[in-house]
């Protein structure tokens, strides 16, 4: 049970505080309600590039990192399709430094042309390192484009192409900032050895004077129900064939979300999971296989992907995966398998909650979903999942027509 206090500033900034007196440290986490899904389809990769620019100096402070490091702190950030999150950890006594830095860059960035020019290059190198200079690096790009025809989850956070990132100009940067990086579009969480009264004073002092922005009304194109299976053949200079299959699933608020999560555990969680045991060990069709889901706020994808053992044909591998999937639709889990996935989930939640950093990020995320207290209700929601619900969810997700398959062939001659 994670206890927290919550208050809101007049400009709309939501603030959450979780006290833990056993640590000498504190974490300040700030989540902006903007992700790659909010980008213009012709200017993808923007939210992530923007995350880089947030470290290029703010209106009163030329360098973000330096004063934080001087206060004994460390920081980082990440961008997903749904959100952008910034966090720093430092000795609790120096928490005001984090308030000073974060509030100044919410007030306004410096919008330095040099920073834009350099970060464009850095992001292009990041793009190359992770998505071009790597075997199968383009697989997710292709899969997203195949599975989504309307919804902006069709592109990755890094961007649909290098050109989009290369073309970004300063006017667009400013517009994006003043649209999304406003107090009423953010959630601030402080965890660690701090007191709520002190945080209230600091929040008012540093964030209180920042004007609210125009409320952002998200109106994203929704993905129509997929009626027919789709597939794509890819040939590339990779050492072995890879099969990647996805199915559309419900979003974070869908009543089947927790059952879906458990379904991925049954199929792909660990070396005693069904896919691992059947397809790697017993049938020896795959050298590696995994099953997971996007965990996105809007309807995401349920994924099974693996690399084939040399000599095994794609159709044999695909049939074997589909047979395992079919079993989830036709057979109920026995009570031991249900107990197992529940135990795993309970354990995962406890380990995740160990650090004040994770607690801060979870509180921010659940607050974005509507209420940070939801964080403490998660285990009960998993406990309420029945074998019947898992089966019903499997029937919905693995319905005929809902599937997208990427056949990624090696063109290396064996």
């Amino acid at each position, binding site marked *: 049970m994670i206890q927290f206090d919550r208050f809101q500033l007049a400009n709309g900034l939501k603030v959450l505080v979780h006290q833990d007196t056993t640590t000498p440290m504190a974490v300040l986490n700030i989540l902006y309600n903007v992700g790659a899904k909010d980008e213009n389809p012709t200017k993808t990769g923007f939210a992530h590039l923007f995350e880089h620019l947030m470290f290029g100096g703010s209106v009163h402070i030329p360098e973000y990192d330096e004063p934080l490091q001087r206060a004994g702190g460390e920081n980082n950030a990440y961008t997903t399709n749904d959100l952008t999150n910034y966090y720093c*950890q430092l000795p609790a*006594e120096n928490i005001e430094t984090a308030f000073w830095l974060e509030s100044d860059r919410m007030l306004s960035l410096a919008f330095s042309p040099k920073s834009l020019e350099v970060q464009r290059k850095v992001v292009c190198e990041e793009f190359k390192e992770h998505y071009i200079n790597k*075997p199968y690096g383009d697989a997710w790009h292709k899969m997203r484009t195949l599975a989504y025809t309307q919804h902006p989850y069709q592109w990755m956070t890094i961007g649909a192409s290098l050109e989009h990132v290369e073309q970004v100009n300063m006017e667009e940067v400013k517009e994006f900032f003043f649209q999304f990086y406003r107090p009423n579009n953010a959630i601030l969480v402080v965890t660690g050895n701090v007191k709520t009264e002190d945080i209230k004073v600091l929040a008012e002092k540093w964030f209180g004077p920042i004007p609210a922005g125009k409320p952002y009304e998200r109106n994203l194109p929704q993905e129509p129900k997929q009626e027919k299976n789709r597939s794509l053949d890819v040939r590339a200079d990779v050492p072995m064939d890879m099969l990647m299959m996805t199915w559309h699933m419900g979003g974070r608020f869908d009543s089947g979300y927790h059952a879906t999560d458990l379904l991925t555990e049954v199929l792909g969680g660990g070396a005693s999971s069904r896919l691992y045991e059947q397809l790697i060990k017993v049938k020896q069709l795959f050298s590696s296989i995994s099953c997971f889901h996007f965990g996105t706020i809007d309807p995401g994808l349920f994924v099974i992907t693996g690399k084939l053992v040399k000599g095994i044909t794609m159709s044999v591998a695909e049939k074997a995966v589909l047979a395992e999937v079919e079993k989830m639709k036709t057979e109920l889990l026995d009570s031991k398998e249900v107990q197992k996935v529940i135990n795993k989930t309970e354990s995962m939640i406890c380990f995740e909650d160990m650090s004040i950093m994770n607690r801060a990020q979870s509180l921010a995320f659940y607050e974005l979903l509507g209420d940070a207290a939801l964080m403490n209700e998660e285990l009960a929601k998993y406990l309420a999942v029945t074998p019947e619900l898992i089966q019903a969810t499997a029937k919905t997700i693995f319905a005929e027509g809902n599937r997208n398959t990427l056949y990624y062939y090696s063109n290396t001659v064996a």
Partner: protein
Amino acid sequence: MALDRTTAPNIKDAVDFDIQLKPCQQYVLDNGVEVHAFEGGAQEVMLMELVFFAGNSYETKNWVAPATNYLLKNGTSTKSAFEVNDAFEFYGAYLNRSCYNETATISLHTLTKHFGELIPMVSELVADAVFPENELDIYAKNQIQQLTLNLKKGDFIANRHIDEYLFGIQHPYGKYSTEESYNQLTRDDLVAYYNKYYKEGKCIVFMAGKFPANMESILNKYIGVLPLNKNKIELPEHAIIAATEKKYSVVNDPSSVQGSIRIARHFPNRHHPDFAGAQVLNNIFGGFFGSRLMSNIREDKGYTYGIHSYLQNHIQQNAWLVSTDAGKDVCRATIDEVYKEMGILRNELVDMDELKLVKNYMLGSLLGDVDGPFQIIGRWKSYILNGLTDEYFYNTIHTVRAIQPEQIKALANTYLKEEDFYELVVY
């Protein structure tokens, strides 16, 4: 009064923090196995790690040590690999194993309430792993596929080569796997290695988190009865045979858009008096986000997504490395800038302000690093395995606090000379 946003709030300098490494409890089981335990934390979770002196320094045939470590949970005389995995995963526990150079470990992360159910299984793995032939075949086949894939990646190739140049292909720190090494593994190799280095091997136990009430007696019942620590395990001596040629360029994939750069030299182990000071110099040079290499090569020039320097953490002998992936057309320029930064550190005194920032950063991170039971036991483990005590921890803090620009410059003149470095680019 308007808020002054240009002036930083007052801070307590991290150099003034009282940083303590909390002591851990020690006891010896009936069979002579040492236990180091740190109890604490808010969550009802715990960690048990069994460290065996079974790293690849002890193997006489390539890859026997990692294969034995990997497969020791793939079946006992009464349970299949599936049943072993299922037994741990049923309770939501994580059983991991890792093989290093000197040591190899089995670790268990679990909710405290399930520990009693799981420790008999861990004990069974140490006493009764059987290494089924079929499991070895699947392992070898799948590892060869994984290797084939990794060999497509420039950074993987670069990491293998640079270690080979520094230590030699026969040395535990320099050797690596090949398709042949997997094909030549036999079940007999694994069983013999297991019997000698696990079943009747030398073991130290590390525990952290929230413990069940009768921890020591549980450990005695399941670990204290095993035939461990009976035989003397001598660490074989391995000569370091470094390459004579220092500069290398390897083309792995002609269509590659980046090059993987490694620049490295030998460096003493943690017992050397320069080790702590060199950590400070390393941080200034390339050890964190605000380092000179990052500021210059990423933040000023945009040649790379990231560039880092670090000291390895080997027991016998270390290396000091610079590592980055940079755009193909700027690899040479990146390397030149690395040497230029070395030159500046050799020739100019570091500014007091920059030095203070680095000291604060290091000590602030250290304060965070010794927070939490798993972190605390991890640090103790590292000291114990390196033959150090907490005196090392406090001496390091003292060195970081006290070091002056002149000493940094002297260290740079000893260790950051271009001619001492191996240099490799893999395209």
